[in-house]
């Protein structure tokens, strides 16, 4: 971040064009396997969720442990009109984000009174409360039976490209914001809320702005998940571990407070998870498949201990160490 203040005004860099082109080509590379294409779509969903979390936690210092709340709300915003009135879930791509924003704002009234670890606990609790409510209120949500919807296409391609547009929308909208006044204000609040106020920054207002944008993309991710998967239930979309915690891990591994960190973290997370869940594609004994939580936990411990900035945040450090190792091997 610190390097190249000159390039700080918004533009798409060369590297970013390469990334975009690579992502456009990737599904065709995996044309032979809808399974791999499906994994790619999951990467895109995690890019949205991770970036959304990163704006709030990485850039504004509001570490949310309950991003599943907004994801789930987005998913149900797509699913409920379909369940009750047979309105297409595709509308969720418009409404999911907005409904999540409204929920985020309401939850914010409560959780923004809390700071630090209490804020984290407050967000965690709010997601759990939603999970329980959506699980119990059968008349509204069909409870634990969930909501089923026949997906529009069998082919993965349309989903992939819609997901790609959304994921890039999340990443680049956040990049644009971080190059603006609001971005600087988010960072100031993260570093020291009192000092920020003394600089004339309305901390409450800018925390709300950050929340609005963050919850919007989390809601969109949830709606897209519903549209793509065709099935949701409260245990899945409001999951503490599988959504809230994994979202944090995606952010941490890729690099908290970096534009592309969550995208990288999303890719690493999906690869690791899938490798272990499938027991290295069936090559390893079956007990390996039960290890993926453990391995992911170890990975996080490693990252926090040795590269707290995540892969992108500590990129310079990592390359330096690699060069050092190479030099020593040469001797």
């Amino acid at each position: 971040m610190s390097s190249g203040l000159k390039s700080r005004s918004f533009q798409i860099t060369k590297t970013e064009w390469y990334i975009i082109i690579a992502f456009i080509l990737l599904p065709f590379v995996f044309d032979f396997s809808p399974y791999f294409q499906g994994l790619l779509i999951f990467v895109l969903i995690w890019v949205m969720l991770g970036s959304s979390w990163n704006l709030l936690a990485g850039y504004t210092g509001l570490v949310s442990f309950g991003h599943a709340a907004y994801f789930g709300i987005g998913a149900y915003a797509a699913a409920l009109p379909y369940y009750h009135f047979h309105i297409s879930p595709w509308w969720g791509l418009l409404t999911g984000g907005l409904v999540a924003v409204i929920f985020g704002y309401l939850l914010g009234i409560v959780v923004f009174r809390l700071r630090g670890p209490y804020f984290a606990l407050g967000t965690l609790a709010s997601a759990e409360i939603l999970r329980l409510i959506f699980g119990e209120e059968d008349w509204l949500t069909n409870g634990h039976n969930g909501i089923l919807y026949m997906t529009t296409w069998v082919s993965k391609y349309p989903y992939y490209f819609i997901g790609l547009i959304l994921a890039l929308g999340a990443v680049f909208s956040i990049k644009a914001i971080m190059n603006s006044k609001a971005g600087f204000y988010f960072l100031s609040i993260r570093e020291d809320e009192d000092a920020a106020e003394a600089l004339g920054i309305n901390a409450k207002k800018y925390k709300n702005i950050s929340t609005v944008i963050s919850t919007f993309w989390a809601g969109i991710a949830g709606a897209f998940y519903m549209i793509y998967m065709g099935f949701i239930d409260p245990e899945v979309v409001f999951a503490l571990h599988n959504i809230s915690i994994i979202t944090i891990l995606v952010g941490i591994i890729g690099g908290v407070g970096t534009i592309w960190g969550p995208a990288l973290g999303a890719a690493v997370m999906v690869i690791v998870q899938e490798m272990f869940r499938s027991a290295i594609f069936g090559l390893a004994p079956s007990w390996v498949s039960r290890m993926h939580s453990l391995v992911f936990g170890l990975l996080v411990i490693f990252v926090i201990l040795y590269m707290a900035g995540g892969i992108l945040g500590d990129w310079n450090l990592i390359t330096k160490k690699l060069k050092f190792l190479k030099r020593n091997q040469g001797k």
Partner: protein
Amino acid sequence: MTILRLEKLTKNFGGLTAVNNISLEVQEGEILGLIGPNGSGKTTIFNLINQYYKVSSGKIFLEDVEITNLKTYEIARLGIGRTFQVVKPLKRLTVEENIMAAAFSNSNSFNAAKKSAKEVIDFCHLRDVAHMKAGSLPIGGRKRLEIAKALATKPKVLLLDETAAGLNPTELDTAIEIIMKIRDDLGITIVIVEHIMKVIMNISDRIHAIAYGTTITSGKPEEVAKNKTVIESYLGSDYASGGIANA
């Protein structure tokens, strides 16, 4: 013209009265020194002016507009900048980014903020360290950054809270030079809390002395320095009556 006025300002923390019925006026363009022994309430007065603490009773006026119950950020916007005794750099941002964050209070554009940050950086001798992370600055730089951030908000009144503490003699001279330039070149009114007498006696036009939260005297630096109550509150009544000096 009076730019900042405190009227019978009082702050209670439970049973303790940290600031007791203090009234003072700051004239436009002057440097007012605020002195007093440790715990006499100097920093508390600053914290009351920019509303880190709620005022228990009394009123505060900026240019005859009452600002007593506004929010901290609103007061900053109206034109009271402050530095903190315990410096508060935005650690993981560079010096330039720190100052830009402050400069955004006067503009919405990235380029304008960057331009006005650049002026402040030069003014405060921070050019060499502009791209360093604020958290890795040595204390001298941090103190100057603290001033720079406050300046970038384009204040009318600047409250400086021990900006010279912990500096070596060279840094001290730079700090004094910067503070004088802020008043002389930028025309910003300054209220300064300082323990280093070299600084406060040299740069203040007027000094307001407090002890135990109440005003003991105010006037020209040389008058205040000779005031018996001031000497007493700093060095004890023995010294003031000549007891120790004679012993």
